[in-house]
């Protein structure tokens, strides 16, 4: 009897040979990735319909005029407030990735500290968004409503007929509140999930488990929320 195994008897060890994840990623994490991919489709469909409507419009409210107020500070500071919001969200993404990094070292106290800062960042962002919505609402924008035409025309930097201004003003208002609202809802869920995970960290759940992988998974979600904001920021405020 020969002791050397023939080639066909050898157990295959390639990533796709079975018996383990070909992606070398834990199940929950890969499912988070696929959830985020589906969420990316949802946000894309919203942003693509926004783009198609806006680029086919005869006139669209000018971002530099609509978003020129910094609540309580200045009535004429175009884009500064949204700049602050963007900075807050990028900053909270950094604290989140620092929490993940601390988790790899098993440094529980550091994880808690960075998670708390991430939560604070998320709450600050939500606060800013509430102010932004309140401001636009006080000017007369809301789902299905725009300011009266003599006020509405001040939000355009081109001339157009009242009908065109009202029609596309409505499109703008609906899309703005729907898209930033849907994003804000994601931020809100993210904050809630981050709080739950922080409580688990404090309770020592992941210490016992020997891995802070859950922090990584919520981290993925949180970065995705930041990623969506990067696109919302570009297409609503810059373009």
């Amino acid at each position, binding site marked *: 009897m020969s002791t050397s195994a023939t080639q066909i008897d050898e157990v295959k060890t390639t990533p796709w040979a079975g018996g383990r994840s*070909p992606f070398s990623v834990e199940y929950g994490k890969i499912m988070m*990735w696929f959830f985020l991919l589906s969420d990316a489709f949802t946000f894309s469909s919203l942003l*693509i319909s926004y*783009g*198609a409507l806006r680029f086919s419009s005869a006139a669209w409210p000018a971002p530099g005029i609509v978003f020129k107020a910094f609540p309580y500070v200045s009535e004429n500071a175009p884009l500064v407030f949204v700049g602050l919001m*963007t900075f807050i969200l990028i900053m909270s993404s950094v604290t989140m990735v620092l929490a993940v990094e601390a988790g790899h070292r098993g440094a529980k106290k550091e994880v808690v500290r960075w998670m708390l800062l991430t939560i604070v960042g998320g709450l600050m962002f939500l606060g800013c968004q509430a102010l932004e919505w309140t401001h636009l609402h006080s000017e007369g924008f809301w789902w299905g409503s725009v300011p009266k035409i003599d006020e509405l025309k001040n939000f355009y930097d081109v001339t157009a007929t009242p009908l065109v201004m009202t029609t596309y003003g409505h499109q703008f208002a609906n899309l703005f509140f729907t898209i930033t609202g849907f994003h804000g809802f994601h931020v809100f869920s993210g904050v809630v999930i981050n709080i739950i995970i922080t409580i688990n960290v404090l309770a020592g759940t992941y210490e016992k488990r020997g891995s802070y992988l859950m922090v990584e998974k919520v981290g993925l979600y949180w970065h995705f929320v930041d990623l969506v904001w990067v696109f919302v920021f*570009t297409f609503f405020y*810059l373009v």
Partner: protein
Amino acid sequence: MSETAHTEHTEHAGEHEGMTKKRIWNVFWVLTAITSVEFIIALYLVPHEVFGMTYHAANPIYIVLTLAKAFFIVGYFMHLKFEKTGLIFAIVVPVLFIIGLILVLTNESHHWIDLRM
């Protein structure tokens, strides 16, 4: 059981060599810098038409800069750059279809505007 935990741990360690504190802060500075450039374009270059920068010329620049930011967030913060090639493709390839849809509809919306005029 302990053997399984050990294997997971080793895989885990290898998987995360990518991100150190220093690297995290580097990515932060890159993101901040890109955002600052976008602000300079929107608040200074376009209003004053510096370098002949018009509204229409600025838009493609914003989009390129946004995609660059997306690359840094997904690649480094979400760690995708350091994952297995299979996972990278599983996530990135479907997104290419979104980009295709954007290109198609942007082109189409320019046609719609002609129909409406």
